């Protein structure tokens, strides 16, 4: 009897979930958000269908405020793996001039991310969308199923979720309903980094410490990635050695001071850290139960 390691078990479970979606849904898509979790998800999808390529496209909902390094990494990854990448931008939001500075994080996230995602899923008729969310990230995510059923309006009903015993997923749905599927549900942040190190998975360089231009704003270190970020009176651009634990829209993502420039350094730093990875995410702190509320409205 061969004892599988912790990471081997997680890997096998995720591959099973990915294959189950392809076997039972008509038109799946992988929501690729460029971060470390998406990198692991994509790597697992490549493994699940080897020697073939995954039989579904990647979708990136571009808020137009991602770090430039994320966009170049995204395009390079799709090219390297030979995958079809769909980029969707909510043009209505762009025309209305929605942005994180003038509109605030709540409106910006709702219009450019949540509405944008719903538009893209509807336009292409996707009936299952893979996401890289993990249950250890946030309290309401800890209660979400692996196969999360969404209404035709993309709403999540946490009080009426189907039980998922063993690895038996009930994939029946009505016309118009869809699934958000989370193959990394049982992974932790530490598992993700350990697996990236073990499998040598490329990740965006922003995860590694380097000297970067940052501004101290509302208690966070915001990297000024382009000219669109105007300085407030008294603010100065400092060059500091920083890195990011999670990646999102650059004005909404706080950097951490760090000198961790290798995977080993990152893993050591994470194990010693006393702050959760989502601390740098400004959108999570929009009020108690805010992630749950966003999920009700159709957010991933």
């Amino acid at each position, binding site marked *: *009897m*061969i*004892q599988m*390691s*912790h*990471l*081997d*078990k997680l*890997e*096998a479970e995720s*591959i*099973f979930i990915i*294959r*189950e979606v392809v*076997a*039972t849904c008509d038109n799946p898509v992988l929501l690729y958000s460029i971060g470390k979790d998406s990198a692991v998800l994509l790597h697992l999808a*490549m*493994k*699940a*269908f*080897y*020697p*073939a390529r995954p*039989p579904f496209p990647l979708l990136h909902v571009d808020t137009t405020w991602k770090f430039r390094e994320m966009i170049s990494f995204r395009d390079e990854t799709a090219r390297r793996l030979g995958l079809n990448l769909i980029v969707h931008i909510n043009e209505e939001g762009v025309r209305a001039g929605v942005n994180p500075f003038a509109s605030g994080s709540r409106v910006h996230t709702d219009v450019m991310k949540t509405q944008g995602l719903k538009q893209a899923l509807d336009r292409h008729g996707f009936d299952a969308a893979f996401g890289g969310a993990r*249950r*250890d990230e*946030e*309290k*309401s*995510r*800890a*209660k979400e199923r692996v196969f999360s059923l969404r209404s035709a309006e993309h709403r999540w009903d*946490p*009080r009426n*979720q*189907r*039980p998922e*015993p*063993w690895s*038996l997923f*009930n*994939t*029946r*749905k*009505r*016309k118009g309903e869809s699934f958000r599927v989370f193959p990394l549900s049982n992974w*932790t942040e*530490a*598992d993700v980094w350990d*697996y990236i190190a073990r499998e040598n998975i490329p990740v965006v360089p922003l995860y590694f410490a380097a000297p970067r231009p940052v501004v101290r704003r509302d208690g966070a270190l915001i990297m000024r990635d382009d000219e669109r970020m105007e300085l407030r009176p008294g603010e100065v651009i400092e060059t500091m050695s920083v890195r990011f634990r999670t990646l999102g829209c650059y004005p909404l993502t706080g950097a951490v001071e760090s000198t961790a420039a290798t995977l*080993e350094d990152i*893993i050591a730093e994470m*194990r010693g*850290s006393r*702050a*959760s990875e*989502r*601390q740098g995410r400004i959108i999570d702190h929009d009020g*108690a*139960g805010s992630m749950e509320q966003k999920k009700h409205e159709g957010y991933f």
Partner: protein
Amino acid sequence: MSALARLVPVPDAEPAPEALAAGRHSLLRFITCGSVDDGKSTLIGRMLFEAGAVFEDQLDSLAKDSRKFGTQGEALDFALLVDGLSAEREQGITIDVAYRYFATPRRSFIVADTPGHEQYTRNMATGASTADLAVILVDARKGLLPQTRRHSYIVSSLGVRDIVVAINKMDLVGFDEAIFRRIEADYRAATAGLNFRSVTFIPLSARDGDNVVVRSGRTPWYSGPALLPVLEEAEPAARADGQAGFLLPVQWINRPDLDFRGFAGTLAAGTLVAGDAVTVLPSGRTTRIARVIGGDGDLTRAHAGQAITVTTVDEVDIARGDVLVGGHRDLKAATQIAARLIWTGAEPLEIGREYQLKLGTALVNTRVALLHDAVDIETFEARPAASLPMNGIGHATLRLDAPVVCLPYDGNRDLGGFILIDRISNETVGFGLVSGPGATEAGDWRSRLAQGAQDLIGAPGSERRGDVLALVSWRLASAGTLAGIVAVVTGQPLAGLAAGAADIVARSVLRTLHDGLWRRARERSLPADVAESGGGI
């Protein structure tokens, strides 16, 4: 923040980064269960905190939430760490199963924190379905409650063999050994009939941390280990079906082009090597394994639990739901299975109604042909029953419309557990645990007779049986009266008899035709989307 100052993690939990970073340490999945307010969420919150899995920003929002919703006065309410839904925090109860993750230098843990309320039993069974071990909480002030027995029965049914009984809130009974011993004796007596391999009793206080990570000075009479070391050392019970060979349920046919045709699946048992002879079930065709393929190249061999792709030497017809079987197994696909059912649907089980059954990767239609009993999980007694309500447990024989490869649940969870799906609501309405092939094989004439009778006149005590008996007696009475009248009027007893017989036959035939026409008319007027979604996935 004085509450924080008191709760500094125990310093002896020094991590060994090499073991963790290598990802080579083992995994233990466990479930916590018990009655409402036994302190499950508090215990998990405490373990997460002590294992360093709670971060400073999370502690900040915990402190905020504790003041707003907490039940512990000024102290931190650890339950709020795990009760993630707004409704749960507002009501101070756990509604849904929550999964939590933490690691010590020796092991990673996945904890299913499950609700104590009876109406959420299905979530408890879900948590137990993948658990290696169960922590059952008992409130020292209350002793055993009906839910304690109920949950013990469910975890035992779902194959959890190792139990830790955490006797919590010992601080509220003055750490009284006599109370601990009495609950220990009560629990052993109450669960004597259940199939547990080990039962460990620990006196603790989740709120204060006694005997959670290290042994407490407040229980000098207790010589056993604290909870966390027990969890670190538990060895998951090996699940062997006692047979050589392998089982590979086919999940997906990987056919990117005409040159490659692979069968992808997760190995449910055994070891598989290229060149192995293989039988495809249910068809029974045979071939050999040509290649064993992993995530990025060919493998020499694959073991149970691995997700792989194989190719075969011959072009054989293989579909999702088939099982590739290696070795000398006398395994056959079954169209009838005997199983223990745990009903999870809001509507009760309907005997004879068509449900979908998903087992492994196979999906077929099924009807519960015979409900043998329902189990009273207070007393563990089996009694005859006409149906199972939500959270009911019973034994049944199911007939399938296509053969499925299955094994007894005790030997293999992957091919022994199944779910039942309602074809109209699409809800998961039941969990099933295979106990064997159908209990009504050809030789067993008594079950066949009972089943035939039950199909005809409904289960004992059911509404249907009452209806049938009333109908039969009315039909006989009315035919008898008619026969009497005809006999008297015509003066010929034979004519009376003929009229009575004709009444029984003609009325039944006309009634059947009439009902059939109405049923067809009703089906035609069903909403379109219901009819459509009933057509398969």
